[in-house]
């Protein structure tokens, strides 16, 4: 397929995918479980089926996150993660990979770095998009102009309690895809079955209101089976906490990465 010149890496993967294929986006906290592993993990995720990477920028007070991502953020901060180191990691990945990379994190570290400098440096090292959960549309002007100037896709979220009108607004302002939060709550806290039961109605509304952008659904997906059910009527799914739980269970055993990559492969393809 011919890609137009100004299409972002994120937009391209949705254009290139087969109609029945689900895009798998994986979230990993930069600097967790240690500073040296992040690049290997990202490349390994890609090799084992990830289509998109959400690289978490750790924050001391992640108030939209459950215990798993809180833990990973704390470990990464203790490991000495900095914004500069995150940019270095992206640069390293870009040497061998074109997988779309989204930086995801809270607004304060970005604000402290300087929003314009942050967007410039992020774009320069090969970042494709941003998700800032605590900068909703109301406050998006704090970053949206700089992001656009440097060609970064801004991805906003919709939740089950978002109104139809709100979903349409989010669709208008998002570029890349719309992040559909499957349940009201923090990250990782619910079981897959719980999400499956309630998600249908929500996705129906999303489908009729989010028409411009692809849709990825996240929060509470722990297995291939969860993902197939929950993401049935969307373009794909996002896994974060469940992946970090697997790392936490296996790190630092000698073969910990094998376990993690096996999990990733199963998430995408099921039990082969």
């Amino acid at each position: 397929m011919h890609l137009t010149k100004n299409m972002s890496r994120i937009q391209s993967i949705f254009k290139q995918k087969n109609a029945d294929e689900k895009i798998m986006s994986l979230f990993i906290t930069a600097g967790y479980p240690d500073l040296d592993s992040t690049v290997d993990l990202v490349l390994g995720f890609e090799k084992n089926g990830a289509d998109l990477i959400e690289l978490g920028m750790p924050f001391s007070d992640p108030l939209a996150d459950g215990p798993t991502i809180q833990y990973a953020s704390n470990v990464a901060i203790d490991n000495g993660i900095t914004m500069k180191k995150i940019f270095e990691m992206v640069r390293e990945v870009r040497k061998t990979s074109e997988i779309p990379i989204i930086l995801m994190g809270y607004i304060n570290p970005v604000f402290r770095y300087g929003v314009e400098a942050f967007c410039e440096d992020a774009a320069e090292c090969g970042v494709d998009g941003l998700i800032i959960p605590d900068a909703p549309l109301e406050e998006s002007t704090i970053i949206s102009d700089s992001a656009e100037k440097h060609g970064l896709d801004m991805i906003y979220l919709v939740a089950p309690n978002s109104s139809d009108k709100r979903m349409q607004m989010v669709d208008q302002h998002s570029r890349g895809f719309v992040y559909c939060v499957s349940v009201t709550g923090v990250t990782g806290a619910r079981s897959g079955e719980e999400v499956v039961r309630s998600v249908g109605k929500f996705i129906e509304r999303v489908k009729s209101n989010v028409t411009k952008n692809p849709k990825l659904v996240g929060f509470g997906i722990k297995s291939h089976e969860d993902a197939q059910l929950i993401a049935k009527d969307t373009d794909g799914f996002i896994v974060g906490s469940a992946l970090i739980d697997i790392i936490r269970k296996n790190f630092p055993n000698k073969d910990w990465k094998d376990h993690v990559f096996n999990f990733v492969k199963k998430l995408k393809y099921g039990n082969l």
Partner: protein
Amino acid sequence: MKYTAPDKKGYFGKYGGKFVPEILIPALEELEEAYEEVQNDPVFLKEYHDLLREYVGRPTKLTYANRLTKYYGGAKIYLKREDLCHTGAHKINNAIGQLLLARNMGKSRIIAETGAGQHGVATATACAKFGFECVIYMGAEDMERQKLNVDRMRLLGAEVRSVESGSKTLKDATNEAIRDWVTHVDNTFYIIGSVVGPHPYPMMTRNFHRVIGEETKDQLKKAEGKLPDYLIACVGGGSNAIGFFYPFIEDEDVKMIGIEAAGLGADTNQTAATLTIGTPGILHGSMSYLLHNSEGQIQLAHSISAGLDYPGIGPEHSYLHDSKRVHYYGVTDQKAMDAVKLVSEKEGIIPAIETAHAFAYLEILMPLTQRDEVVVVNCSGRGDKDMGTISDWFGKNSHSV
């Protein structure tokens, strides 16, 4: 000059806003609408003020502090006696107001964060009075140092949940309360205890406390026939201070001073003096001054007083600081504890350690005042809850008294 902050988007100059996850946006919109409806509604305001009069015990007294005045030998010192409010501090003005709003909105479950426990006790009290389910988040360290208030909340029927993350103090209790709110947003109302958080909380909480300043204005007019020359209040998040200051903001001759907790000193890393050494940032839903490092990670605050032990401050205080309408200074643990003793001995009033920070500033201010001037200190809370800390301090530091 006419003072109209915040604007429609909840900004006090460049501070404030609504920096929250998408899930909370509908909840904040619903809250804004509900508050808009009641804020000038005579029926709602009558019920609120009736409760303040008959249940809280308002108006609180304005007491002339004759022995403190004599001790310093400068301006006359008056105390606005919020320590005489039911539950022992100003916090209940806001807890009652927000609870009535929650009831109007049909919410059945109340959550709150608390530092010193005064807001938790006030919220638990209001919930008991109106028959609401109540969950209070409190840092594990604060539960230790304010044990009496934990027992009070439980006796009042509230569930107190210990928060073990981060610094185990007010900041972390607030994170946990927000996580609860995100999860139970349908039936839950979050009663925020200070002038912090996303819009409309800072404005709404201020308005539920403005009664402090309004009463002070009337009472002082009767007592002295004039406006005060100086107002002093302690500032953590800043609710008692803003309620005290707000009705005087347009009275340009009234000088206003907010006292932050400097902990071991604003030049150490054991401090909570946000405006003195912090820089703007975003925490708990709004932009304001913050204690954070060069990476934007929030730093742990320190103060001997749990109620001031917070690395942020209300956005309106940041605005009043930048515009220099209010001047802010830091007072150390040591100076605050000296003031606890002084005010107890001179006036027969044992102030909360938070409140004692405001009193400690008299030592600096009073030599600069004239005998025909008037200083009013907002005596925001009483010290009963602090007796454990106070006894330990004077036991260990007996050389300093």
